């Protein structure tokens, strides 16, 4: 089916014009997978496979919302929706009874609640990162993932916002966080990082939602126009009994409202592009600021293990790391389940994200190491003690304490620390090997491990730092109750339910951006050297685009 033969063009280039052998220069050519994994620097890897035309792209992407989804979708929605419904009862239970139903105690007064908050808000960073930072860096491959990553961001931030809201215990006093005076006319304390957090997270949610919505305006207009065209062509089957409503009439109305009357005017597009780029520009420092501010919640305290200046960059790197892992975790199954998804989300996209996971994973690993270095270098015995005897030391390595030879000191949460290290630092190392970062299953497994590891990272930071601070008389272990676990499961189910609904009802790809990165979108095909017939061996200069998609580069010119 594919008319792309990058393999051929690679061999032709390596062997000059002679089409003799495919392995001309005595080295094994890399496996190019679906055609997107070309390693030849003169060949630009196609961003969309199989030479999809504009209307094919429209059909593929709109088809995801217009056609009935597979059985898997209903089953998954039913399962996650049920868990979400049951889990919401636990939130009600917490609010009615009080947070005593959680496993908190006097020493560990933040545990699952804030762990989950930081976990979800971290996941929520990949969407805006992909949209904003990759947009500014002109990384065209972002078009395949930005929409779903942004959707994921919104849902993750919703999950994140839930936990601080319920952890206050008396949620009817939550208005204390807003800048309105309380009963005694006292304003909230603007010197508290917890209040900064409220502003950062709510701004982040609002701006991500605006960004997401703005990107969807043209795509909702496409869905509206398609529904409208079908309505004009003739009567449509009813969606509901007895009412003269067809699915297309509902679509035309709802997407029509969402599209705000968008009519694909170039004068509009130009302002739209300016505004979108600016939104990306202001979102970039926003993404970095939000997780920095989340880290201030800990870093501005004096608790050993929290009071660390490396926290802001360390948290941001961890957020990007965990967020990309979640994007991959969701999209690799979607890629298998939806028809033609693989044309839009190629192996190269997955490979790029695997590389980002590898890089950010090592940044996180560096931060872990740096915490130990600073604990030693600062000569602060509490800090050193926290890192060695709260986190690191497994029982089988623990030596006896010289003062109390009968007591063997080891870190009670050593398994959480080592789960974090093995998932976050060790598991991504497989991506040094090309075979692993080009196999969706391998990437999916690593992304699952990273997601687990990132949850443990927050657990380690929060619970292990708190459970043995200062006086040994105050030391307490934290054991989660079934409500703790249930609410975390609820948040996962809510996240997945919303994502499934998004997949069904909203455009999963930024269609206009996807079309704009195809070769046939170029308004100057005649300047593109080497298109059409003579795309063989001529030159490293302009050929690449035409190499990757012969036949289409020239379409516009004739």
């Amino acid at each position, binding site marked *: 089916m594919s008319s792309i033969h990058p393999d051929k063009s690679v061999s032709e280039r390596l062997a000059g014009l002679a089409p003799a052998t495919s392995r001309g220069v005595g080295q094994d050519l890399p496996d190019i997978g679906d055609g997107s994994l070309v390693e030849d620097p003169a060949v630009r890897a196609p961003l969309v496979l199989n030479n999809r035309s504009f209307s094919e792209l429209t059909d593929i992407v709109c088809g995801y919302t217009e056609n009935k989804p597979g059985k898997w979708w209903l089953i998954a929605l039913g399962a996650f929706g049920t868990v979400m419904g049951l889990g919401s009862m636990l939130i009600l239970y917490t609010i009615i009874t009080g947070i005593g139903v959680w496993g908190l105690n006097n020493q560990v007064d933040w545990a699952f609640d804030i762990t989950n908050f930081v976990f979800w808000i971290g996941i929520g960073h990949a969407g805006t990162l992909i949209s904003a930072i990759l947009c500014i860096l002109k990384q065209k491959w972002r078009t395949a993932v930005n929409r779903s990553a942004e959707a994921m961001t919104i849902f993750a931030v919703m999950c994140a916002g839930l936990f601080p809201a319920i952890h206050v215990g008396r949620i009817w006093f939550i208005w204390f966080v807003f800048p309105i005076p309380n009963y005694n006319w006292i304003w909230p304390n603007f*010197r508290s990082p917890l209040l900064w957090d409220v502003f950062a997270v709510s701004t982040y949610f609002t*701006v991500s939602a*605006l*960004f997401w919505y703005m990107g969807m305006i043209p795509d909702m207009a496409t869905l509206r*126009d398609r529904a409208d065209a079908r309505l004009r062509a003739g009567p449509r089957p009813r969606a509901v009994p007895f009412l003269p409503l067809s699915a297309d009439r509902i679509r035309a109305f709802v997407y029509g409202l969402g599209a705000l009357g968008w009519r*694909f005017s170039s004068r509009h597009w130009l302002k739209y592009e300016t505004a979108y780029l*600016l939104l990306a520009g202001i979102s970039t420092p*926003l993404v970095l600021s939000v997780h920095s501010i989340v880290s201030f919640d800990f870093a501005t305290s004096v608790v050993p293990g929290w009071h660390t200046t490396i926290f802001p960059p360390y948290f941001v790197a961890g957020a990007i790391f965990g967020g990309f892992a979640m994007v991959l975790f969701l999209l690799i199954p979607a890629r298998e389940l939806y028809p033609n998804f693989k044309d839009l989300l190629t192996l190269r996209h997955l490979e790029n994200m695997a590389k980002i996971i590898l890089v950010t994973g090592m940044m996180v690993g560096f931060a872990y190491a740096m915490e130990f270095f600073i604990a030693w270098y600062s000569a602060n015995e509490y800090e050193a003690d926290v890192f060695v005897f709260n986190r690191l030391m497994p029982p089988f390595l623990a030596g006896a304490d010289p003062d109390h030879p009968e007591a063997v000191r080891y870190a009670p949460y050593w398994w959480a620390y080592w789960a974090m290290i093995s998932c976050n630092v060790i598991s991504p190392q497989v991506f040094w090997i090309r075979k692993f970062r080009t196999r969706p299953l391998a990437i999916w497994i690593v992304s699952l491990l990273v997601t687990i590891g990132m949850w443990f990272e927050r657990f380690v930071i929060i619970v292990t730092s708190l459970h043995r601070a200062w006086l040994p008389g105050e030391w307490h272990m934290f054991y989660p109750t079934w409500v703790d676990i249930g609410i975390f499961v609820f948040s996962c189910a809510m996240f997945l339910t919303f994502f499934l609904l998004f997949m069904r009802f909203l455009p999963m790809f930024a269609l206009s951006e996807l079309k*704009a990165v195809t070769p046939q979108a170029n308004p100057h095909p005649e300047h593109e050297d080497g298109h059409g017939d003579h795309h063989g061996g001529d030159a490293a200069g302009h050929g690449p685009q035409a190499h990757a998609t012969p036949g289409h580069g020239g379409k516009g010119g004739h």
Partner: protein
Amino acid sequence: MDLPKIPTRDQLADYVPFLIKKGSAKFVTPAGKRVHGIMAEFDTPAAVYHAAELVRDEGYKVWDVYSPFPIHGIDKAMGIPRNIIPVMVATGGLSGAALGFIMQYWMTAVDYRMVVQGKPYGAWEPFTPITFELGVLLAAFTALFGMLMLNGLPRWNHPLFKKDRFLRSSDDKFFVVIEASDAKFDLRATRDLMTKAGATNVEVVEDDE
């Protein structure tokens, strides 16, 4: 710089037809309908790009290119100057930051002063994060709503939506529409120009009324 213009009476009538009526029509169809403009269809971005250059060089002012995605460089082909959205967003961002800072300073150092952590009442350092966040918030709102406002959106309907062919502008077709309110507009000459530009289909668009 593409400064926002004061809307004409006919443009306002598109939004509030119950308040403002349009002036008399310069062109009407044989059926007596007001002519909105001439719509020409093209198959490729390259074709519509060259057509746009042609229309620009003919000196038309009230016209537009419709495409499923922003065509690279179309602003040059259409002769559209840069827009003022960056200025608006900067203004919005700076206002948000200023308001955020003033709000915190007034609440902490003026209205109800309290000693927290032994710091001066009006120390600016702890106000930085919220100042920044509110600046970003207002800048983001300005970017989206400023863009919509300058584009005259949201808008319920448009004469072009009546054209069945036009719906494909959201799929894979490209259109040039020259509006009848342009001073140079002429039914015959404009149609000929579009044919010369290589349009695959040329139609007259009627107004809503």
